[in-house]
């Protein structure tokens, strides 16, 4: 029986789980994925975990290090910190970066709930109340109205819906802020221009910038590691160079053409910044770029500066200060190399962070042109410098649109022009383009895997995407036909990896995933053997 939550429930029974996710309530998947009971579902926490960890929302834990207050004083300290953080969020000094959008979203929501139907998490969950885009936003709004605005407490009493700010509220809001992909589908559907994803991100900022609470994969092992060592993967500059040298050799051998990746070339036209995760997990993507750039005669380079070979910027997901530090680092490197422009790798949030969001963090000679990989690849493909044979890609292909490239950046067609040209069996998902569904790993979730969080991602946040993929291939869903999901974004690929593994999509339906550059190289006349590897476990 579905439980209906009230907004005020958030502050009640601090140690109790607010609601649970039932596999049979989730949006159904088409056969052969319709037997939910055959899958492991979401791992139940052990009694010991329940004792140690904060798990008072949905039985899922995204951050095991979230502290529990030892006593009333500590709880009050957290409440005080939360209010202090709210004041900073509303101040021009500490939050000039997003104050105007925040206030426009806080003050003018009509509570019409139109946005709920756009949210893949809410829909996939079988419409769980706490996953509504409006649930956390409305609570946040009421807390601001009560604790920050004049006569707020009195008005809250008179107006009803009075939310008590206590440990339960704070900890549940923390977890709730990581049950959202920041995909902004809800924002797109709001007639008032209210942006619930922005509110979610502001909440994350409050926790990170005031409390120092953020998922370890995003902060400690994310931006902090990137700024110190060079990459959240832990890959150091010399190791990155070594890895790629090795890959160059390996692919020279396997493709029969000379593969050589240039490093630190001063004055190059293009500084290409991949995600280091691609070097480690999807090396064929990185090599595909080397092959394409060299074949098209692009004057390009990679950088081995700390941070220069990893374009990710997790600050985009949770912290403006970290966002600014990483973005500035990227452009400083480009300036030092005196390149003409930076080209993003196949990484959606790198695009969003560096092309648009950070655009207003840069001044003087840090304002360096930045281009999307989609237009860059389009220019290469249609330059006439490389010969293609589209029949080499004669298998069903569909395109996953990374939210940060499409809805958040407005780059929709170049990748499609390439696919229409090079993939005879290209088909769109429904919906697609700026209306796409997030892969379920957006907002930094794809790299988070604490406790049982991955279970949630594959069962809930990635569900609508998986359903769409299956529907796009519905005409040939059997395993005998190899099918390719083109996902030109590292984080999306990481999420698809988890999804496909969990559901056995490769075995049951012959579906694999990969980037765009690999598909392009696969169609090159010069490359004799298939570049896409259908056999190997990804």
């Amino acid at each position: 029986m579905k439980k209906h939550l009230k907004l005020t429930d958030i502050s009640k029974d601090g140690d109790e789980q607010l609601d649970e996710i039932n596999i049979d309530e989730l949006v159904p998947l088409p056969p052969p994925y319709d037997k939910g009971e055959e899958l492991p579902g979401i791992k139940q926490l052990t009694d010991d975990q329940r004792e140690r960890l904060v798990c008072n929302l949905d039985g899922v834990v995204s951050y095991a290090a979230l502290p529990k207050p030892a006593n009333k004083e500590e709880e009050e300290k957290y409440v005080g910190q939360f209010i202090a953080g709210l004041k900073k969020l509303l101040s021009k000094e500490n939050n000039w970066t997003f104050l105007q959008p925040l206030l426009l979203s806080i003050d003018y929501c009509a509570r019409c709930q139109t946005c709920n139907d756009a949210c893949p998490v809410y829909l996939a969950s079988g419409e769980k109340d706490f996953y509504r885009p409006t649930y956390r936003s409305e609570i946040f709004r009421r807390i601001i109205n009560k604790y920050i605005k004049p006569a707020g407490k009195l008005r809250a009493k008179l107006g009803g819906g009075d939310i008590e700010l206590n440990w339960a509220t704070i900890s549940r809001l923390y977890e709730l802020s990581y049950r959202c992909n920041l995909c902004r589908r809800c924002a797109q559907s709001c007639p008032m221009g209210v942006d619930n994803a922005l509110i979610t991100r502001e909440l994350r900022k409050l926790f990170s910038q005031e409390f120092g609470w953020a998922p370890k994969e995003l902060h400690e092992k994310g931006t902090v590691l990137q700024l110190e060592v060079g990459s959240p993967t832990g890959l150091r500059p010399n190791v990155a160079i070594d890895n790629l040298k090795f890959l160059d050799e390996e692919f020279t051998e396997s493709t029969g053409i000379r593969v050589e990746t240039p490093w630190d070339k001063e004055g190059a036209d293009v500084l290409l910044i991949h995600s280091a995760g691609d070097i480690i997990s999807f090396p064929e993507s990185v090599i595909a770029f080397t092959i394409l750039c060299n074949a098209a005669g692009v004057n390009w380079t990679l950088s081995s500066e700390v941070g220069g070979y990893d374009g990710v910027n997790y600050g985009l997901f949770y912290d403006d200060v970290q966002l600014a530090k990483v973005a500035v680092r990227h452009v400083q490197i480009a300036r030092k190399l005196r390149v003409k422009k930076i080209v993003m790798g196949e990484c959606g949030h790198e695009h969003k962070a560096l092309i648009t969001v950070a655009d207003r963090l840069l001044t003087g000679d840090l304002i360096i042109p930045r281009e999307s990989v989609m237009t860059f690849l389009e220019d290469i493909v249609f330059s006439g410098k490389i010969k293609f044979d589209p029949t080499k890609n004669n298998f069903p292909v569909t395109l996953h649109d990374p939210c940060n490239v499409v809805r958040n950046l407005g780059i929709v067609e170049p990748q499609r022009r390439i696919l229409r040209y090079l993939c005879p069996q290209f088909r769109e998902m429904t919906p697609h383009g700026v209306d796409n569904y997030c892969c379920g790993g957006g907002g930094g979730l794809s790299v988070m895997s604490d406790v049982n969080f991955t279970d949630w991602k594959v069962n809930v946040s990635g569900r609508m995407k998986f359903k769409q993929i299956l529907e796009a291939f519905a005409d040939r869903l059997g395993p005998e036909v190899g099918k390719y999901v083109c996902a030109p974004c590292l984080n999306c690929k990481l999420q698809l990896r988890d999804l496909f593994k969990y559901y056995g999509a490769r075995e049951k339906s012959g579906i694999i995933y990969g980037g765009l550059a690999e598909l392009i190289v696969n169609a090159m006349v010069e490359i004799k053997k298939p570049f896409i590897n259908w056999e190997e476990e990804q």
Partner: protein
Amino acid sequence: MSLFLVVLTYFAYVFIIAMYVVKAIKIARLPLHLRWELYPVIYEPKSKYGSGFQEDEKGWRKSQGKKLRKGILYLLKENLRFNDYFKSNRGYWLVLFPWHIGFILIVAFHILCFFGALVIIAGNPVTANSVYVIGKIFYYCILITGVFSFIAGAFGSIGLILKRQSDKNLKAFATPQNYFNYIFTLIVFLSGLYAWIFADPTFAQYRDFWRGLLTLSPVSVEPATAVHIILFSLFLVYLPFTRSMHYITKFFAFFWVRWDDRPNFRGSKVERNITGLLNKPVTWSAPHIKSGRTWAEITAEEKYHEKTS
């Protein structure tokens, strides 16, 4: 009484305009924020399929001039059609739409009364059988907008109370103020309807009241009309304390956030703005921020050149 009505009406209009202006200025003066646009940006040339200028910079630059007009037209149309609601929740639209149409028409009704009064002052009677065409036009326009606004608004108010109660999604988020608003608007619209039916079927009194308002020579009206005038004035005074400003802030949210894709060039106004903002102090408490410095100092802090190996 007549004087009271005049003073109250003037006060209500001055109050609401002043409040809205102050609020709008407050929002407008907030600092420039980081880019956070969302596609489609409706005034971009390829917005049909969602694309932005990042796909084609030259094309975008050419289209700059047409931006404002295209955006405003789009939002005005949306404000009139409520298309999003029509698509997402038909039942809600069915009551929300007339409620808002009630507002739009009641505003139009008062604007027409204002100009109608000017027409009368200029010596052209506003009546059904006025010898001047303009008088006739004003007569019928005032009559139609008034009557339709009262009917649509009253219907919408009742409908919204029922809908908010019966739709569990809407009910969970409704506040007592929502219901108070609906009841208040219902009373305003019903009072207008009552006055029209029982006291002022051609709005002759209302037009006369407005003439008196503008010439500062108060005229007396029937109690039912007076009640409506009082309620409508109170409603105007109350409006700034509701979310009603979303009619206006919606334009800000779209133009200044959702569609704000102005790039930052060297030497541009945007760049000058950012330079100032980066000098603001940061006082966030988390240890990694090491606050007490400015944004510029924090972001420049990172010594990046040394290769760690």
